[in-house]
């Protein structure tokens, strides 16, 4: 007999992995999106150096998301990837270009501008594609018997374009507040300056998305608007985080803007989850329909409970090794 509801535990784990990814790769993608707008080439060097030692680890959370979905909820994996076929390709192409830019840019002289573009363009495409995935997820997928039957571009709608832009703005905000924390002088001043406009952009786009979403799907509308429930705490908290970002930037705090931006992401993310819970492939399948075999979920869970604390420990340790401000001219390799 099955002792625990493993599917539920796994939903929490995957949910945790996804938000870890969004927060961690979010700021380094954000740094990439802001790259072309930096005050000078030296500042670009510094910006890249703030993320160079950690970006690989950050992206590994995405790989865990993919592999974990396959292990725990194969139906999600094998429906969503075909449904987003073209989008996934763009995402991966973007990640390839920005990934190699880390290595090549510092070696380049006359062709350096190419790697600047490769880093910025790759980050922007990847961020947009991720936002579009969120939008596609809210829209739901066209399936028959557990198999995706829609077309190649069903995911690309005005709504998903908007969520893509929302993600771009959100990641830029994570990036700018990260730079406030990790840099000083002129570069930090610039990051302070762009944070408030970025915050406004994020709030505007999120507001439009929130108003639009109930029209995209009935279930979401009922959940939020049929009667006022406790879930309204989440948007309230989101606004509180936004206020905190604004206030801490005005007071020139260094760490708080980044922390508050993470808060903003977490509350928005939870809001998204409660809109769709417990559907993991809307509108058809719940997390229990999509789960893999009990013994497979158990086999992986045992290892995970043991290994993830170790992973978190040494990840935290590497952040500690590279703690503090990054200054212009501090070496690569």
């Amino acid at each position, binding site marked *: 007999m099955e002792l625990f509801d493993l599917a539920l535990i796994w939903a929490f784990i995957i949910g945790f992995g996804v938000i870890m990814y969004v927060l961690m790769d979010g700021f380094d993608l954000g740094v990439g999106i802001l790259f072309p707008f930096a005050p000078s080439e030296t500042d670009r*060097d510094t910006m890249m150096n703030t993320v160079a*030692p*950690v970006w*690989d*680890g950050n*992206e*590994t959370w995405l*790989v*865990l998301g993919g592999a*974990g979905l*396959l*292990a*725990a909820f*194969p*139906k999600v*994996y*094998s429906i969503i990837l*075909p449904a987003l*076929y*073209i989008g*996934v*390709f763009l995402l*991966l*192409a973007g990640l390839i270009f920005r*990934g*190699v830019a*880390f*290595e*090549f840019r*510092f*070696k*380049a*002289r006359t*062709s350096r501008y190419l790697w600047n573009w490769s880093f910025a363009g790759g980050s922007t495409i990847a961020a947009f594609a991720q936002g579009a995935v969120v939008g596609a997820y809210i829209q739901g997928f066209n399936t028959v018997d*557990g*198999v*995706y*039957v*829609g*077309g*190649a571009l069903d995911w690309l709608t005005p709504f998903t374009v908007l969520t893509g832009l929302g993600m771009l703005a959100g990641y830029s905000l994570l990036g700018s507040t990260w730079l406030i924390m990790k840099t000083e002088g002129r570069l930090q001043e610039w990051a302070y300056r762009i944070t408030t406009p970025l915050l406004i952009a994020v709030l505007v786009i999120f507001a439009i998305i929130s108003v639009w979403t109930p029209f995209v799907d009935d279930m979401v509308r009922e959940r939020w608007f049929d009667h006022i429930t406790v879930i309204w705490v989440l948007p309230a908290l989101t606004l509180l985080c936004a206020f905190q970002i604004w206030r801490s930037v005005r007071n020139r705090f260094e760490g708080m803007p980044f922390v508050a931006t993470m808060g903003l992401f977490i509350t928005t993310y939870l809001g998204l989850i409660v809109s769709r819970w417990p559907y993991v492939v809307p509108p058809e399948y719940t997390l229990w329909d999509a789960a*893999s*075999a009990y*013994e*497979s979920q158990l*086999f*992986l869970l045992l*290892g*995970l409970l043991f*290994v993830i604390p170790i*992973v978190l420990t040494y*990840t935290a340790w*590497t952040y500690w090794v*590279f703690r503090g401000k990054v*200054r212009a*001219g*501090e*070496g*690569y*390799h």
Partner: protein
Amino acid sequence: MELDPLILSRIQFAFVVSFHAIFPVFSIGLASFIAVLEGLAFKTGNPLWEKLSAFWTKVFAVVFGMGVVSGIVMSFQFGTNWSNFSQASANFLGPMLSYEVITAFFLEAAFLGVLLFGRHKVPAGVHLFAAIMVAVGTFISSFWILSANSWMHTPSGVELRDGVFHVTSWSQAIFNPSFPYRFAHMVVASFLTGGFVVAGVSAWYLLRGREVEANRKALSMCLWMLLFLAPTQAVIGDLHGLNTMEHQPVKVAAMEGNWETSRNVPLLLFAIPDQENQTNRFEIGIPNLASFILTHEWDGEVPGLNEVAVEEQPPVGIVFWSFRVMVGLGLLMIAFALAGLLLRRNGAYYQKRWFLQGLRFMSITPFIAVIAGWFVTEIGRSPWLVYGMMNQAEALTPSLTGGMALFTLIGYVVVYGLVFSAGVYYLLRVLYVGLEDEDEGEHESDRPARPLSAAHVPFEIEHGQGDVNHAKPANEGGH
């Protein structure tokens, strides 16, 4: 013309995974080499070791970076193009790939940051530890991924219920019959790759008289290792083949170009397999040798392709020739390793020009052998995906159209083409500038505000750098 999504997806998978595989084999070998160099530097305090290590770490950074980005593509390929396969095999493959992520990828990624950027931020011992952890990570990674792959060749410990594999025994599934052989063969292949590349590059520097002392050390180390590993690889390969004959006899028949099950089978050195007429043209072979190798009896019975229907045969020509390329190169490697031993006396191995030139050429052969080996293994499994249980056509994503598959195939070819050219170009630059640049590195900690560009290898070949003396950064005389 109708575009066939199955063929296109197969080409796409073969392309992206072959591309990916080039980097891991090199980085697995190189990671261990760097860990050894760091260990020697730590123990003896001789700056030569640190110089070598710092140099090869630079090469490693590029190779590893390309391995990571192409690997991320791999982990989504199953879902995008082979979603029915993902759905069916998730109960086993999902946990395998996830274990790879949590036990290997995180470890590599975290300690890679410290290895590349932390030389002056952490104590020497911790830096050594980071190098070791990266090397360990590469082995753990190969363990899981090769277990997953081997299971597709020799599935066991599972039961097929309603089109979905359910695991009945984890230990049988993970340690499936072909796994120990494939793992050993692949690890040794990685060391051979690292060994021949380092040997080839060191030989090239010796030919040009650059950094003679350090490069002699590196070359000598490599030759000792190759002397031991090249023959070992042949023995493991032989055992691997025997195991394959037991579990996938048709694949062995294709490797040998043997159409009918029979005794006294010759070892073919040359032939043109003709699948249409189910026979070979222009056979040249050594009588009875295939029987002897595969059964250890001169008149042993060797399985033939006629054991299965024509539609269930793999494409014989590719398997047959890829196998010959791999084994041929393996024998050549053994020859070079032995030559290295014979030339040991009075240091001829670092003086004889023909030998050094030969080693230069040898540095690309392991890559060719590895790709050829994978072609044998993977194409020899065709038309099966999970041997005897699920074929390729059943595995394909149902909603995939030929147009979509073609679009992404072209996309990957273009993206990889660009990235790969840039990567190779930059690697050549790193090699070209060479170890001399590392003298610079020792001063790094004293001068944190030194302009970045000086310590780095320029991407473009600039005028005046053709001459070795100019390869050092211009500000080198400053301290």
